[in-house]
């Protein structure tokens, strides 16, 4: 808080008797604007603030570093091979000994990433949102905590463990049922669905919790059934939060690596059939990174760059979605 005008004492329009008299006395004593420098209490505060600020701007610096290093490592591929040959080609045939002679089209993997993510959301979003609504509205008290804890436990399971589970249980099961190899986008989507459920559930639950209790009560008091209250009041009021939850789930699905790599089959083909093998951006990086170098490695970094751009864009969308909630405030 600072002062704008320094106008001292106003004239007394009515003259005496003036209850403000003592102010004049004080002014005449000349002590009104004494400066005490002896204790500038602010100094340690400012120092602390500075230090904290520097620490917090490290985050910005790290993001900057990530961008710089991923970008600079992908530049050779984009420059030497051309934007078009990387992003709009489905031909991926790296040449290890003479990298420049190979083909590095990542379209098939981009396609794999998008399709497995969509699959994961089709399976995982209803589960996640449904579970959140269940916890918020339907579950009996003793079950609420249990389900929520369960969801948190899923969130904590390392991705290699889920991948191993997928590889040893889901893939053979799919192979048995569909009479294919079992590896493929469907298996990947299943595994990913498991992994996005906790993200979507916890964030949707948060969004539902943010809906004021009294609106819920108002609906119930008007004789609405539970489903009417959920569908007409709770879900609309938390729509943006739930959308954000799904988008963040999407982020998770796009970025997941190890679990997908174990079950997707790691083929190089462009495919739209969920039961066929392909790769995603992340799994291709892991599959090929081992002995790559030169433009080959750079092309893998270019896929990292795509992932980076994906998540940055999604985050910006989420932030926009969560800002300025339309009607509620």
């Amino acid at each position, binding site marked *: 808080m600072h002062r704008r005008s320094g106008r001292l004492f106003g004239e007394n329009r009515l003259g005496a008797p003036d209850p403000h008299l003592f102010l004049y006395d004080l002014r005449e004593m000349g002590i009104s604007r004494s400066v005490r420098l002896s204790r500038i209490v602010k100094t340690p505060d400012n120092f*602390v*603030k500075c230090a904290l600020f520097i620490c917090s701007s490290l985050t910005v610096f790290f993001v900057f570093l990530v961008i710089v290093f991923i970008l600079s490592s992908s530049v050779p591929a984009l420059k030497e091979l051309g934007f078009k040959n990387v992003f709009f080609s489905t031909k991926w045939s790296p040449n290890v000994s003479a990298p420049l002679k190979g083909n590095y089209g990542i379209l098939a993997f981009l396609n794999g990433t998008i399709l497995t993510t969509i699959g994961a959301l089709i399976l995982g979003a209803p*589960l996640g949102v449904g579970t959140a609504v*269940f916890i918020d509205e*339907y579950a009996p008290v003793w079950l609420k905590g249990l389900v929520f804890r369960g969801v948190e436990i899923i969130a904590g399971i390392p991705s290699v463990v889920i*991948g191993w589970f997928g590889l040893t249980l889901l893939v053979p099961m799919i192979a048995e049922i569909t009479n294919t190899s079992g590896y493929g986008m469907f298996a990947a989507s299943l595994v990913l669905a498991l992994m996005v459920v906790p993200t979507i559930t916890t964030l949707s639950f948060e969004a539902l919790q943010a809906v004021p209790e009294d609106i819920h009560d108002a609906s119930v008091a008007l004789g609405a059934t539970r489903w009417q209250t959920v569908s007409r009041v709770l879900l609309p009021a938390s729509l943006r939060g739930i959308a954000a939850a799904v988008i963040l789930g999407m982020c998770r699905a796009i970025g997941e690596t190890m679990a997908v790599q174990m079950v997707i089959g790691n083929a190089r083909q462009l495919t739209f059939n969920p039961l066929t093998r392909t790769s995603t951006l*992340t799994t291709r990086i892991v599959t090929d*990174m081992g002995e790559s170098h030169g433009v080959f490695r750079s092309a893998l970094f270019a896929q990292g760059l795509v*992932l980076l751009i994906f998540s940055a864009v999604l985050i910006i969308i989420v932030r926009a979605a969560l800002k300025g909630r339309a009607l509620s405030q």
Partner: protein
Amino acid sequence: MNPKRADRIATVVFWSLSMTTLAALLVIIVRILSKGLLKALNPFFVFGKPEALKAGGGVLPMVVSTLYITVLTVVIAFPIALATAIYLAEYTRRESRLTRVIRLCIDTLASLPSIVFGLFGMSLFVIFLGWGYSLVAGAATLAVLSLPVIARSAEESIRSVPDTYREASYSLGASKWTTIRQVVLPSAFPGVITGTILAIGRIIGESAAVIYTAGLFVRKIPLNPLRTGAPLSAYIWYAQAEARIPDFRSVVDGGAALLLIIVLLVNFVARKLASYYREKKIAG
């Protein structure tokens, strides 16, 4: 449709959705533990050295690597994260362009795929700084990865300290830093610790970020942080993907069970601690 009927159908749908989620969890845990628990509890496995070609190897260096790298990561990330959280929660009550940038960066960092951190760590720490595949390179990468997670949960805990405490402190003539140190941080402490432990759970389970930074396989127990390590999660992936040892299935089964147990334990400790502090605060 009759609202009553719709309500009944919706109830069934929501019950089945959430029970599916729970069932999935149960299937995973039962499957992983049923296949690997015996192995995971076998002292020759937990305290044995890994084999490169023969069957019968253990995972002790991997477990040690995991612990080592986790400690290093927290040592690097926690102070920065806490400082960031304090700054954002206490010094930027009002969104300025600068804090918006910081917040955007935190969110971005938090949502980046871990493989991107792996690539980043490899090109910065391993190659550019020349640390090679080493525990520090892995820890530094994991620190950048877990920084936003810790910072955000800490910020939330700090923000959830009621303003009335701050007002009370200020009104007694406390400076801002005194107020933060004496009133805000002690109140936020349980939340901060819980958030950090949860982040540790994530660090322990992380594999994509460490395979190109910390390493995949060691035989000696790593003591020097500048040497290669092999966190358990990375080794599990390595053992199944590069499957060289004949008993890799049982090694992966055991490793997965062991990893799962460790992570669940960590999460359990976090929850227990949180509820302990919650009770203590009230009972005092």
